[in-house]
């Protein structure tokens, strides 16, 4: 277990020192494979054992972490001053002060017996990070090489890039495996800093601005986390996650710290009003976006919220979490309609789906959490697939705009095929995302939460729309396009192809995944399990998936048919790409989608979301503080 946390760091350091590009790609692949195998082994070893706690037994680790944290805070302070981003500096100082206060105030008196743990949820997270994260890193080898090919004058900063990627993975393993909240906070901050550095990787002005926005927001969340740790320490005298959950379930007054931890999770998972940091993160190289969106960073946010879910429900923290999640799902889906940049559509869709996960966790019933975990798994697989496809497309057609993906089906048939799997996987039956959404809907109904029902129904309708029009762009068969697929690196093919297979396989194996992975996990968290989607329905879904895979085989045997022109009022010039206009002029046809700016424009939707959600969070946190400070209801 420690191996998983420490090995990526080792790999990172080696990579930092490796200047040769060949050697680097070999090391990256070897380490990625090692991490993936190790995480599968870990999950397999502890499969079905419920919660297992570990005592690391090395007392010097915590002070070391503390020292590292102080150094990092100092670095952030310096960077903030240097780039004139003072809020970041101030927040870094506040956070360092809070940690120091905790460490010297009560930290010494509280002894954590078990620093690490593993349970079903952690195993799932380990698999997501280990397998999908590693695939993304492999993809990054090809991507970065390709990227350098496009801008040869740029200095090779590959060592630094891969160093950060691996440190990031290590920190993620730390987050999902730490039982000691102080450790968790440390890893939490490391992911914040890594994402800050990765977003700012290209060092353009926009990148620096956006990276500081991400840093500022996440530091704010981090402060929430730190305060939560202090409150838990002072009130309950503990620093362990399992004991917090136990005492919370037993009825101890933990609403304020739980609310603050959930707040940290909300920030990290880019829920409204904090969605802008994730959208800004799009300036980073595509593998970074894929990593941030699918297996790390935002998943850390939802992980902590799901972790807290047994304590949520119809209480102040629970209401905050579920409403923020629900409203984010609805509004972010709407905002996605107005975007034509593929990465931004993906970003908004990530925000929306995380919103749904957060809302499920906020409802805090066993069936809602079942849906949340399902969503998390499928979202990780499908979203990384989509990001990689978009990244590859961007390199080869020179644009990341959906409107420029005209004729992808003819230009890059294989890539278009993979992308279609990803797109369809995001919104249609019988793919996983939809089944999870279904379960989420059913659990909201069971919780009799009319606001969430409304959000999820309208949000789903909008979701169909924005994926549908993108899908329409992808499937269009445009005549006279050359195949330009040769330039794609084989690392990219390998990684993207594997993810697509994974996404499909997960859907076919849906009932197995549910029965043997998610049900036991929810069982350990809640003690009971009820699944909104009965297993016979899961088998029907799985059968539909198989049918979908078989249909092409049945159909494409022989296809001898005459091909006719498309209809253009009888004035098609004969190539399906242009028509004869007035005065015999040839006019080329270009088909564009509508983006409904006046309905779902980013500013409009974002503005509403900002006020509603920010207001809600402030009110509920203030209320919790009031109750905590002894106020009467």
């Amino acid at each position: 277990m420690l191996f998983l946390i420490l090995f990526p760091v080792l790999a990172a350091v080696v990579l930092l020192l490796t200047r040769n590009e060949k050697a680097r790609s070999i090391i990256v692949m070897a380490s990625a494979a090692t991490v993936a195998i190790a995480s599968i082994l870990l999950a397999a070893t502890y499969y079905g054992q419920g919660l297992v706690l570990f005592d690391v037994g090395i007392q010097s680790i915590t002070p070391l972490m503390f020292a590292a944290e102080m150094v990092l805070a100092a670095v952030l302070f310096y960077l903030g001053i240097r780039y004139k981003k003072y809020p970041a500096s101030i927040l870094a100082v506040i956070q360092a002060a809070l940690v120091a206060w905790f460490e010297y105030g009560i930290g010494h008196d509280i002894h954590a017996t078990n620093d690490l743990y593993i349970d079903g949820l952690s195993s799932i997270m380990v698999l997501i990070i280990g397998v999908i994260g590693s695939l993304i890193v492999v993809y990054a080898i090809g991507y970065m090489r390709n990227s350098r090919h496009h801008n040869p004058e740029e200095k090779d900063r590959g060592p630094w890039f891969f160093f950060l990627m691996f440190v990031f993975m290590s920190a993620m393993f730390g987050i999902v495996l730490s039982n000691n909240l102080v450790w968790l906070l440390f890893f939490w901050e490391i992911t914040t800093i890594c994402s800050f550095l990765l977003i700012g990787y290209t060092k353009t002005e926009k990148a620096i601005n956006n990276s500081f926005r991400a840093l500022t927001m996440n530091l704010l969340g981090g402060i929430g986390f730190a305060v939560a740790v202090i409150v838990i320490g002072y009130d309950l005298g503990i620093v362990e996650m399992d004991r917090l959950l136990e005492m919370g379930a037993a009825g101890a007054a933990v609403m304020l710290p739980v609310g603050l931890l959930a707040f940290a999770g909300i920030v990290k998972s880019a829920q409204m009003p904090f969605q802008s940091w994730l959208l800004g993160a799009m300036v980073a190289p595509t593998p970074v976006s894929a990593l941030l969106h699918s297996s790390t960073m935002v998943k850390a946010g939802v992980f902590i919220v799901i972790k807290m879910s047994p304590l949520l429900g119809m209480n102040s923290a629970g209401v905050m979490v579920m409403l923020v999640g629900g409203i984010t799902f609805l509004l972010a889906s709407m905002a996605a309609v107005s975007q034509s940049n593929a990465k931004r559509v993906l970003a908004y869709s990530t925000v929306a789906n995380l919103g749904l996960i957060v809302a499920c966790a906020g409802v805090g019933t066993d069936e809602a959490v079942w849906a949340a975990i399902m969503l998390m798994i499928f979202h990780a697989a499908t979203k990384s697939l989509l990001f990689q496809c978009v990244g590859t497309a961007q390199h080869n057609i020179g644009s990341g705009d959906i409107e420029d993906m005209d004729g992808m089906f003819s230009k890059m048939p294989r890539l278009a095929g993979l992308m279609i799997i990803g797109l369809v996987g995001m919104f249609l039956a019988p793919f996983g995302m939809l089944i999870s959404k279904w379960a989420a809907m059913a659990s909201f109904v069971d919780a009799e939460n009319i606001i969430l029902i409304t959000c999820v129904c309208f949000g789903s309708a909008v979701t169909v729309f924005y994926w549908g029009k993108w899908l329409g762009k992808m499937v269009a068969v445009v005549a006279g396009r050359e195949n330009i697929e040769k330039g794609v690196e084989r690392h990219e093919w390998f990684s993207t192809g594997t993810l697509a297979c994974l996404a499909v396989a997960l859907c076919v194996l849906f009932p197995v995944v549910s029965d043997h992975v998610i049900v036991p996990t929810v069982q350990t968290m809640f003690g009971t399990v009820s699944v909104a989607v009965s297993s016979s329905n899961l088998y029907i879904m799985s059968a539909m998936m198989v049918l979908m895979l078989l249909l092409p085989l049945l159909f494409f045997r022989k296809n001898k048919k005459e091909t006719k022109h498309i209809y253009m009022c009888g004035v098609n010039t004969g190539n399906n790409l242009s028509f004869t206009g007035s005065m015999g002029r040839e006019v080329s046809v270009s088909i564009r989608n509508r983006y409904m700016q006046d309905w779902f424009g980013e500013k409009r939707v974002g503005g509403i979301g900002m006020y509603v959600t920010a207001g809600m969070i402030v009110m509920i946190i203030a209320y919790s503080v009031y109750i905590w400070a002894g106020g009467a209801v």
Partner: protein
Amino acid sequence: MELFQIISPVCYVVLAPLLGILLAGSDRVITARMQRRKGPPVLQPYYDVRKLMSKERSTVNGVQEFYVLCSLIFMVVTGIMFFAGGNLLLVVFTLTLSAVLLLVAAFSSNSPYAHIGAERELYLIMAYEPMVLFTAIGLYVFSGSFDVYDIATGGTMPILYLLGIFAGLVFILTMKLRKSPFDLGSSHHAHQELVKGTTTEFSGRTLAMVEVMHWYENIFLLGLVALFFFDGTLLGYALGTALCILVYVFEVLIDNSFARMKWQTALKSAWLVALVLGVGNIAVLFAFGG
């Protein structure tokens, strides 16, 4: 599993085309009578499809027919699951899958008219989807089960508690049945503005499949309407069957008395209906404990 749950989907697969033909045929006759015309024979839709099947094989690209075939298959699957008494949400999602596959077929042609039709159809999906979901949720809140079988044999007519949702469903049915004022995507009548919308690039056998799909779809939709009257007694089934036909006639009347509206109107009105009738009805059910 009851015997009924096996017989009824088999009946659906066999009889739905037959009933679909009669329904579409009577639709055309009634429409003609409303316009003081004689109209075609009742079996006209059947003749149309047989003719389309006998036409030359031709297409605009190699994949279009495949998408349409998939759309048809999943439409039939939708109906089978519904009449087997399956999960209503699953039914709704499969219905959406079928609808989207048809749009994919239209989009794949890269033809301007088909694109416009398909995009408008997407607007319609966005417009009616919330109400369809609220229908399923409403029936669940009422009966405590998403399974059609449990709802149909529940002992009380859902309509008594779900009047708002029923009205909302009838409203969006206009879109699903491709009737004016919401026949934006494609319609059976010639409208020069669209040519034929979604179906512009379909021809011969492909178009025949689309027609057959509509037969299956219409019968399924009427089944959904009838479900509101089923209470497990013979009277309920009779009433449901009679009233779903009445609703269809009502839709034909609406079709003939309205001009086509813009997608903005369709979206706004459908969402308003879903919000007021759908959410309102469910909220009332929650408030009074079902």
